[in-house]
């Protein structure tokens, strides 16, 4: 069996990429989704706030997913659900296994990686304490509540102020649980401002910045957590301990792009994003293999996942028609002062039509700054004033081709 484009993952990224590839004229496309339904993590995000950029209206996660599933139904894209990709070879053979289809090897001309991300766990951040039950990643708790219909606790402390944790603070409260505190080790929240306001402040849930959980106690189930203030180096300050009697700890301590398939295929991974190194069309280090959405870098808004994935899907279709891009000029993108990474990591100038959106996160909160793009000779290529910058909110700038043509060597994005 062979396809022009095989999309790995049927969440928002995979859906948008497949539809875009179809719209670009590709007629041999397959999406492989490991869950029992398309839509990915959107299916459990039953709150609203999705689609403000893309659809110019406020949708819930399932509604946002449904819009794309409906679009997909109008195409001839094949869908394999409840199917797991076991391997992708550098030759673009995709090995999948499913209850319905057994073991299949599909040959693709182009592959789009859209596997999304996973949550960091307790082990990843070495939280001390007892090994009791009642400790969940926020996303796992969200699945229990919103998909399965079960409560996971009554008195809750949330560690980390990532968006899923904030959303779950409100969700657990609405379901009758008492959320005692949201504890964030950094001096600022990792989540969107609107979520701090709507999910914590509106429910009088205290947010303890520069604090962390220093002990979890309990025999069978969590019985108590100890929270301490931390210094600038994130070390707990003795004497600042607060105890919370609770039966549940939710962790919202970061997301990691899920790139085990990418790694095993030999795709170059950027240690800053933990996602594949990509060009302006989201092509990875293996020609014809594209990546989009949270597998590339973790987004706050699904709308940007969609935009990026449409670009990747369109490029995958183009690759099937005309093969590898042949740009002679490749501009490498570097992160300068105050910037954590950039996506894309390089731009093939000759293939750019119009402009290139560049996504990144800043390292610290700041006000009244400029995002400055310089070339290797220090010449300012573009500058974008910003009133407010925060690590919790992904930034993006658009670099028009006319400006890129002026650059000598690579480009560096900094906050100045």
């Amino acid at each position, binding site marked *: 069996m062979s396809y022009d484009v095989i999309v790995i993952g049927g969440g928002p990224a995979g859906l948008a990429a497949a539809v875009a590839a179809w719209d670009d004229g590709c007629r041999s496309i397959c999406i492989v989704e490991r869950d029992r339904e398309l839509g990915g993590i959107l299916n459990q995000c039953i709150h609203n706030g999705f689609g403000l950029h893309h659809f110019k209206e406020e949708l819930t996660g399932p509604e946002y997913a449904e819009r794309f599933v409906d679009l997909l139904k109008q195409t001839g894209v094949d869908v394999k659900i409840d199917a797991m990709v076991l391997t992708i070879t550098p030759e673009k053979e995709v090995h999948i296994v499913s209850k319905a289809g057994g073991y299949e090897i599909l040959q693709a001309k182009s592959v789009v990686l859209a596997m999304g991300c996973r949550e960091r766990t307790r082990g990843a951040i070495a939280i001390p304490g*007892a*090994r009791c039950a009642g400790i969940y990643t926020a996303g796992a708790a969200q699945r229990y509540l919103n998909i399965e219909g079960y409560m996971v606790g009554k008195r809750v402390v949330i560690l980390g102020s990532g968006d899923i944790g904030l959303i779950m603070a409100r969700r657990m409260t609405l379901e009758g649980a008492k959320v005692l505190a949201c504890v964030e080790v950094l001096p600022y929240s990792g989540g969107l401002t609107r979520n701090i306001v709507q999910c914590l402040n509106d429910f009088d849930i205290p947010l303890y910045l520069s604090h962390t959980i220093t002990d979890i106690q309990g025999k069978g189930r969590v019985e108590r957590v100890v929270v301490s203030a931390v210094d600038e180096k994130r070390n707990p300050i003795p004497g600042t301990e607060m105890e919370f009697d609770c039966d549940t700890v939710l962790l919202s301590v970061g997301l990691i792009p899920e790139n085990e398939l990418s790694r095993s295929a030999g795709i170059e991974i950027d240690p800053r994003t933990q996602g594949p190194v990509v060009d302006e069309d989201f092509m990875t280090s293996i020609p014809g293999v594209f990546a989009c959405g949270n597998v590339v870098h973790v987004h706050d808004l699904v709308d940007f996942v969609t935009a990026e994935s449409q670009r990747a899907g369109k490029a995958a279709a183009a690759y099937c028609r005309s093969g590898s891009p042949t740009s002679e000029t490749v501009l490498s993108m570097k992160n300068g002062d105050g910037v954590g990474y950039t996506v894309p990591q390089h731009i093939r100038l000759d293939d750019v039509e119009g402009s290139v959106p560049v996504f990144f996160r800043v390292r610290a909160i700041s006000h009244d700054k400029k995002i400055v793009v310089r070339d290797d000779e220090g010449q300012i290529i573009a500058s974008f004033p910003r009133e407010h910058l925060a690590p919790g909110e992904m930034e993006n700038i658009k670099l028009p081709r006319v400006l890129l043509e002026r650059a000598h060597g690579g480009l560096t994005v900094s906050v100045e």
Partner: protein
Amino acid sequence: MYDVTIIGCGVIGASIAYTLSQYKLNVLVLERENDVATGTTKANSAIVHAGYDPEPGTLMAKLNVRGCAMMEDLTRRLSVEYKRVGSLVLAFDEADRATLQHIYENGIANGVPGLEMISAEKAREMEPALADTVVAALWAPSAGIVDPWGLCIAEAEVAVRNGVTLKLRSGVSAIRDLGEHYEIETASGTYESRYIVNCAGLWCEDICNMTGGAPFTTTPSRGEYYLLDKSSGNTVSRVIFQCPSKVGKGVLVAPTVHGNLIVGPNAEDIADPFDVSCTAPGLAEVATAARKSVPNVNLRDSIRNFAGVRANTNMSDFMIEPSKTSPRMLQVCGIKSPGLASSPAIAEYAAEQLEAMMGVKFEKNENFVDGRTQVRFRKMSPAEKAELVAKNPLYGRVICRCETITEGEIVDAIHSPIPPCSIDGIKRRAGAGMGRCQGGFCGPRVLEILSRELGLDRKDILQDKDGTIIITGETKTGGAKA
């Protein structure tokens, strides 16, 4: 009336049960928890020590070397993961060098095969990640790594399949010696048995105290660990020890049979043998010590911290002998490291002791069926996978995506001779939830499969031991109505 009752089903109890099931004996195993392998057996370094640490002439020395030699064949028969990777003990200074020499001589006296003192250059050639500060090393090619709970579960399963009775949730509260037999009072009822084997690990002393008093005292010693992602699994390819000290064998860095890297343990005496908490200072101690051996060990790749408690006593050797106060009870006590490595030999020796105590030679059980097979989808070739899925489509549904564990393997585990009732019970049998997301994705689905296959309400499925409740109720609109 049972012939023999084994108290405790860690790896020692299970090994003895497995050994005794090969004879015509009526054997009972009593376990306090809701599953086997839940104490020291499930939280340790998972090393099959070569046998150079124990002092020559001790029971420990004899049984360690013998157990290590038995392990390869045993684990192959029982389909338990094991690898003879060998171990290096590192010396960092002249004092360490003297210690190395001492344990080298111990090893030779104990009959450890293939021991070799090697130069720092040779050690770094074998293991490029080792620190520049290493001055010499002891190479023991016979050491290995094993799945410790897997070994215990496999032995217990084969024992049960061959007629041994296992009673879970049966903590012993009293033992009455009635002369010809014992009456053993437990949480699940009272049992009668002619002989008892006390292999209750950290609680051996309590069992002794029910039968006339303990000839030793127990000091639980907790060790904390990091378990690193498979991306760090190749940091070293052998077990890397530092020189042993009075408190134990020190912090090691080693690959695991599952492909991860294990780093730990420290050693801290604690009061409560149930206390498997991790602490910030303990983990920091482990991190510092590990970096001494392997400076670039990437602890940011950690997927889990855990702690285990060693059953340390004031005895320097294993105690495997009839109780002085209750002579029909066989003491299998003080089984600290290298207990896991020694376990097959401990069982063999315990059976001999029981024969002596009973004054008989056990008769072979000719119906005994040895061995066990287990489907491990992820280890198969594409052709084998295709064939398996064609035969049973449940092996085509991957539930644990990090470890590629299928629904078929989970269902197999649920319907195994010792059915688990918890998500961690599935983890220990099938491997689901062992990976980098630590059950974040597969936990709810494993819970659903457990509930379906066992016919239990989802709220009754546990994370691990009794009391480890996962679901506390339904949402307002709630609950999946099956």
